[in-house]
């Protein structure tokens, strides 16, 4: 398949990056079927949403409604947007931990938290989420032929405990996000083998070297495994699996992309750099998708107990405390809606970027599915009912551009049903996800 990359993406990206134009012919043609390449993104923003600015207004039908304030930045992508009402985070209702912890832990895993030493509301404690997250299940399915299985990106996601993790490779195994654009860049591009002008790849000594080094590393792992405890052997097995994965991916055909220049180092804790960091990460992710370096990502903005300001929006309240205020309070309302709009704008930027890249008869935006939600429904009460959830894309699996009330009879379904639908949309054929007692199969409202 030919991938034509529109100039605009890279000019936009050039606002922060000096990006070369990757207009090289695709080298991925061999063995690739004609079916489109799908991408998947989970996105988290903290502390719930102001519902009065979230749910659509003037609702006539599922397809005839007006976007509320928070979703205005997505107006151009309304046909890709699906707003789901009356889905509950039922799996956040029990198990160890406080409401923020349980919410973020279960959002993409559908699991309870393990027991542990992380402290949250009223003295409750918890550990990590007790299972794999949906993005990682999808990465195992569709992320195996790309150089990287998934990317974990974060913007001021600087709490390094359960509050700061949305992606899990397994029970108790969180994947930390990269919060520095330069690190993201290096992760994606630093070691890429770049084809020459004609699209040919020079005989690559580097690949061969890496191969032989990793072979030796694998031998050393095996040697050590004979001399440690059973538990440590499991640790080394996990290590070995990851090394083998790196090794296997090395063997893959290199990329049909030129390498952009790297961004400057920034301070991931800086409130002034925060907007630049966020947009750079979105742009880098867009390029990584466009070049088919990765097909799955998670994107985490801040964390549940954050105390950060958004000075470029003139929002000087401290995040989590702000979300505790009455949503009708004028200050809280305007600051939190402004932040949510800015988050919407990040989604819009991603889809603007992806829509500018043609792939066969469609664009990457047409072949991407994103789920955006948060760890509590309303910050001031820490509820887990009627979660604010937006899907973007996924039009190949369900009709997008709708506002859908998902209530089933008088019962709100578990969000794990939605996660099953997402898995199915991404080609993972399973009928349940997360804790089995909550999940009844794919979300009826989207079938």
């Amino acid at each position, binding site marked *: 398949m030919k991938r034509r990359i529109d100039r605009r993406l890279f000019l936009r990206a050039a606002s922060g990056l000096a990006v070369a134009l990757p207009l090289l012919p695709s080298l991925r043609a061999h063995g690739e079927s004609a079916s489109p390449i799908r991408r998947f993104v989970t996105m988290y923003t903290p502390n719930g949403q102001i519902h009065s600015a979230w749910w659509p207004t003037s609702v006539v039908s599922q397809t005839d409604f007006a976007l509320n304030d928070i979703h205005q930045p997505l107006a151009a992508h309304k046909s890709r947007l699906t707003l789901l009402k009356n889905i509950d985070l039922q799996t956040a209702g029990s198990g160890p931990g406080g409401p923020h912890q349980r919410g973020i832990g279960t959002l993409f895993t559908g699991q309870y938290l393990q027991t542990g030493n992380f402290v949250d509301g009223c003295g409750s404690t918890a550990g990590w989420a007790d299972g794999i997250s949906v993005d990682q299940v999808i990465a195992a399915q569709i992320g195996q032929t790309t150089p990287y299985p998934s990317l974990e990106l974060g913007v001021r996601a*600087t709490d390094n*405990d359960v509050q700061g993790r949305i992606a899990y490779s397994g029970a108790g195994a969180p994947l930390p996000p990269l919060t520095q654009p330069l690190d993201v860049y290096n992760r994606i591009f630093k070691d890429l083998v770049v084809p020459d002008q004609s699209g040919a790849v020079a005989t690559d000594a580097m690949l061969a070297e890496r191969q032989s080094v990793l072979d030796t590393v694998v031998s050393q792992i095996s040697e050590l495994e004979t001399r440690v405890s059973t538990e440590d052997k499991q640790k080394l097995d996990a290590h070995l699996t990851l090394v083998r994965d790196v090794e296997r991916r090395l063997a893959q055909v290199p990329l049909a992309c030129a390498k952009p220049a790297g961004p400057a180092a920034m301070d991931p804790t800086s409130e002034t750099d925060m907007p630049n960091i966020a947009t750079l990460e979105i742009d880098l992710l867009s390029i990584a998708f466009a070049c088919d370096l990765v097909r799955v990502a998670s994107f985490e903005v801040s964390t549940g107990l954050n105390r950060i300001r958004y000075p470029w929006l003139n929002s000087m309240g401290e995040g989590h405390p702000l979300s505790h205020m009455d949503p009708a309070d004028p200050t809280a309302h305007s600051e939190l809606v402004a932040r949510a709009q800015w988050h919407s704008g990040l989604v819009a930027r991603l889809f603007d970027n992806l829509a500018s890249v043609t792939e066969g008869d469609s664009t990457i935006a047409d072949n991407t599915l994103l789920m955006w939600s948060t760890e509590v429904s309303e910050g001031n009460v820490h509820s887990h009912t009627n979660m604010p959830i937006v899907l973007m894309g996924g039009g190949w699996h369900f009709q997008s551009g709708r506002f859908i009330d998902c209530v089933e009879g008088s019962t709100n379904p578990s969000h794990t049903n939605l996660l099953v639908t997402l898995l199915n949309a991404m080609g993972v054929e399973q009928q349940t996800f997360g804790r089995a007692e909550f999940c009844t199969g794919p979300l009826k409202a989207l079938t």
Partner: protein
Amino acid sequence: MIGLAALGVLACSNAPRTPSPGTPATGGSGGSAGMGTAAMSAGGSSGMSTGGSSGTLACTTTSPGVAPLRLLTHLQYDNTVADLLGDTTRPSQQFPAENVVLGFSNNVAANQVNPTLIAAYQSAAESLAATAVSSRLATLAPCADGAANGECGHTFVTTFGAKVFRRALTANEAANFDALFDATLPSGYPKAIELTLRAMLQSPQFLYRVDALHAPTSESGAIALGADELASRLSYFLTNSTPDDTLLAAAANDQLVSATDIETQARRLLGTTRAKQMAQDFMGQWLGLDQLSGAARQAPDENFGPTELVPDWKSSLGAFIDDAVWNDGTVSGLLTSPKLFLTPKLATLYGVSAPSDPSVPASVPTQRSGLLTQPAIMALLAHSDQSGPVQRGVFVLQQLLCMQVAPPPPNVVAVPPAVDQTATTRERFAQHIADQSCASCHVSLDGIGFGFERYDQLGRYREMENGLPVDDSGQVVGSGDPSLEGPFNGALELSSKLATNETVRSCIATQWYRYAMGRVEDTTDQCSLNDVKARFSSSNGNFRELLVAITLSDAFRYRPALENP
């Protein structure tokens, strides 16, 4: 102003948890079992003790500590490659963040490999090896004119490999590297060394600390660690780096066996620069100083950028910690030293005439008393536009008394009351105490926190706020320690009470033990931890003695039999 009272139904009934068995925690709506081992050991009253104490646990036999594979921390990785290769580029800056448990990012259980980290290890190994070979091949892997490159390579494998692995290589390990070297040699000696080094730096024998390298055994009980393993434990605990030549020599010459041997090496290592760095690293994690990064702090009468002072605060506190831990050397000094190490910017801000040399402290005994009154700590425990009485109360209870304080429950407005030019902070926060639903928590938090009202969000000392006199009287309530309970007069008096307090010593011992072991203590640690606390206390809270005591504990010196953990 935010009306807390306007909230009808609140569930704010949880007082801070009390560690003492005699004072059970009250209320708490979730996770009532909660604290587990962390609370058991907090406050110096775990119900277990050694020897003839009144506890229930008789520590009569050796109590080995669990010894899992431990990934090098980021700091340890950077120090290790600096010491092995002379490379000070700090490759870990590109590693994904470490997971944090109870403040500590070196928690072993929470820090396992992931795909991004494996890729980063690969990338770092490639850079390090390329630099090492291009810049210092002759020292790294010397090969005299006329010598056979193959032999030089195999010598490199066994000699440098032993440094990288922190022990002699097994025959198979050496053979694996030899094979790589030999296969690469046709591309040239430097390239063969480079690839071998890359493989070394990605081997788990390097990336993990292997404390128990033995064939599975049927032995039970406690097994004394071998000399190589002890050398690594000592160096990675006290210096966050690979064993130095002296330590390696001691290990090789049977001079790292007895408690006296260990103590000798420990005291030597405590004299190194790296030990100072270790104390800074520990303090940073214990005190949560990374939260200062990016923290916006401003005052209407100053024109600093929102985070402009952060580097100054950090360097100021760093110098203070160095002085308190290594010069004064005791908890008492840490909590009562009147010294301020000021950058020019801070000296101006605080109206203190600073000596021209920033390493020479100013002394301000009427305004400052130790860690809790340090500018960086007061700025850390604040909001962007005002002081943070609640955070300051939480900090004392949590960091110094090892009590777990929960964030406010749902339905509580946790916003600091808006700044009001006609009232003091204390008056505005008084609402917490007035509202019964909040009082149960906040009488403890604010009671301590108000004692710090003479320090604003920039760490400035003040006696007036908005033209009104500052009232910094406070009270300690629900600390679980009768000797601390009751009213006090300002941060200086509170600090002096804490300075010689046993609960504080016990807490600091527990925190440093967690850092040393890379885990939250569990039942297998109780005897060791009690020994450590006892030694720390009998030394009157001397930090050097605490660190030595940890290295002499059973958990540090012994491991359980492999198949009988």
